[in-house]
């Protein structure tokens, strides 16, 4: 089993000449006056494990349903493998979908559910049986062939749904909250299995999820959606480390945000005056910024180092008092109140079972981080 994936060797989205397998051109979907999807353009490449991430109502499911063909865009074009499918009905598209509710046919047994799509395309019976057996072995449900859906557990149903949607060798598999109905433990285990299957079959997966952890674990790239628009499309690490908007920064993980304005920029460094912090913060940033421009400095809690005294010639040091501690087992979260009253969060791994000098309430501390560990948000 592989852990969070490394896409270094092949990052197809980096190659501009490659034809994407899914191409959305200015796609808009309106329900009455409500813009569920608002002018989205997006490319997804063959072999990707692509996630649409966002809170409920952000338009991610509508986008997925347009890919499947259940919704028609109000405007814009939709291409799959170079073919314009904007007006092609779902039953003629080379994509399949795994539904959030699984949508297993209750009157058919497991084998018949999986064989359904194959029957529709007129595959001969013997071939069909082989394919069904192959799929059941892929998702490890061989003994369940004759059961009806209501006789299966949630996890088993999920596997049947997956097998059924994979049966026809779709070019793209659409998954709507594939793990949403499973309990936490099963979900984590299944995440890896999904990735495994995707890698083995080489099918492009497009997943809708509201669970950032799930998206981070499985995806090659994540499109973070917000109110019908895409905030940012990037691989998980980039999305986390270099969010481009306040929304992106705060949706994924925790973040400390300091509002301020640019005072100066040289080479790849900017200085930002932050009133909350009481000092000028130094941030590594390569895009050109104009002095006086309003920006936000974003700082992940785990990037913060705790020291007990101010150090000379070191940027980004803040003095404050620990006000709250949350012990989560592997890490602890601390809330530090600055002189301005602003609270800053940081986390520390609990390396030792019993620390000699644990941080405690009302203790005065100095927080410090390097210019490389934080970012500047312009939106």
């Amino acid at each position, binding site marked *: 089993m592989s852990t969070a994936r490394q896409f270094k060797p092949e990052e197809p989205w980096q190659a501009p000449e490659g034809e994407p397998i899914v191409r959305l051109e200015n796609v808009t979907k309106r329900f009455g006056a409500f813009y569920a999807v608002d002018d989205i353009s997006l490319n997804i490449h063959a072999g990707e494990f692509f996630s649409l991430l966002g809170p409920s109502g952000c338009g991610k499911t509508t986008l997925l349903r347009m890919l*499947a*063909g*259940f919704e028609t865009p109000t405007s814009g074009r939709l291409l799959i493998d170079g073919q314009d499918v904007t007006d092609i*009905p*779902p*039953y*003629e598209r080379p*994509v*399949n*979908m795994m*539904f959030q*509710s699984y*949508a*297993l*046919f*209750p*009157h058919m*047994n497991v084998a018949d559910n999986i064989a*359904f*799509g194959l029957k*529709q*395309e007129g595959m001969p019976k013997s071939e069909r049986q082989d394919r069904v057996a192959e799929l059941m072995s892929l998702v490890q449900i061989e003994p369940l062939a*004759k*059961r*009806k859906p209501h*006789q299966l557990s949630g996890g088993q149903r999920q596997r049947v749904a997956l097998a*059924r*949607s994979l*049966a*026809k060798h779709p070019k793209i598999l659409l998954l709507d909250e594939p793990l949403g109905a499973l309990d936490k433990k099963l979900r984590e285990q299944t995440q890896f299995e999904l990735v495994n299957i995707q890698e083995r079959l080489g099918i492009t997966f497009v997943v809708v999820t509201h669970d950032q952890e799930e998206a981070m674990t499985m995806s090659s790239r994540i499109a973070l959606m917000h109110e019908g628009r895409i905030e940012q499309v990037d691989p998980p690490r980039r999305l986390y480390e270099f969010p481009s908007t306040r929304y992106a920064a705060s949706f994924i993980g925790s973040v400390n945000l300091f509002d301020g304005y640019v005072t100066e920029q040289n080479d790849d460094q900017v200085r930002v005056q932050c009133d909350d912090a009481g000092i000028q913060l130094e941030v590594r940033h390569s895009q050109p910024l104009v002095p006086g421009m309003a920006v936000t400095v974003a700082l992940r809690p785990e990037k913060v180092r705790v020291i007990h005294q101010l150090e000379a010639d070191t940027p980004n040091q803040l003095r404050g008092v620990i006000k709250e501690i949350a012990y989560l087992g592997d890490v602890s979260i601390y809330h530090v109140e600055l002189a301005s009253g602003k609270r800053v969060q940081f986390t520390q791994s609990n390396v030792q079972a019993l620390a000699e000098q644990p941080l405690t309430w009302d203790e005065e501390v100095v927080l410090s981080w390097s210019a490389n560990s934080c970012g500047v948000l312009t939106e």
Partner: protein
Amino acid sequence: MKPTSARPSTRHLIIAVPWFWLALFFLLPFLFVLKISLSEPTLAQPPYMDLIREIEDGFVTLVINFSNYQLLLEDSLYLSALWGSLKVAAISTLFCLLIGYPMAYAIARSPLHWRLPLLMLIILPFWTSFLIRIYAWIGILKANGLLNNLLMGLGLIDSPLAIMHTPLAVYIGVVYNYLPFVVLPLYATLIRLDLTLLEAAADLGCRPWKQFLLITLPLSMPGVIAGAMLVFIPVMGEFVIPDLLGGPDTLMLGKLMWTEFFSNKDWPLASSLAALLLVVLILPFVLLRHFERRSEEGNP
């Protein structure tokens, strides 16, 4: 009823209520019918003989007479009537389903705010008397009725169509009257149908017509069966509609029972006809339950 615990509980009491109801209003009357069916007709009040008779000086004997049932099976008239009723019931049920299914489907798929008004339209005819509705059909179908006058007025036909007093009129009356009994249970089933199942089928390459055949239709079978039973069973014993709209050649059990009961004063034979009808109607139920149970058990 099989008590699962020695101590009677509230649950048992609650279960006992419908059983008691059935016993009092179904089983008991049926036992009366059964008793009369084993008796012989006589000119008296009531017009059948007691099964237990005093012969002389306190000697009592039980006289059970199966000849009524024997007559039912021997005389082709009764089996023909049974066949006639089965035919009318089956054909009417089929047409009720053919007409009622699309109606129920359309209502279930119509916008939310339309459903209640549409359902009300289905139920509305029930607010007028059953007899008035049948008489209205007489007014429509008779030789110089609305339909014939309309068609002749439009110049489509030269002489009135003979619809009244034909089997066609019976079918029209029966289908019209029993249609709501098909539409309502079908609506209840179709409204519960998970529409994502149709999307899933479409996604797997299924065209709309096949989606209906492979998904909607099989999943609405409980509604189809409920609706079919609600039509088939009462039509089997239907008397009023064939009597008013049908012709003399409409041979059905209900009418025959009327003749036996009123014209012949032969309560025992009428009762054995009723018992026969009950057996014919219960048999499909028993078989259905049997198969249902088997298909449940057939799966591991």
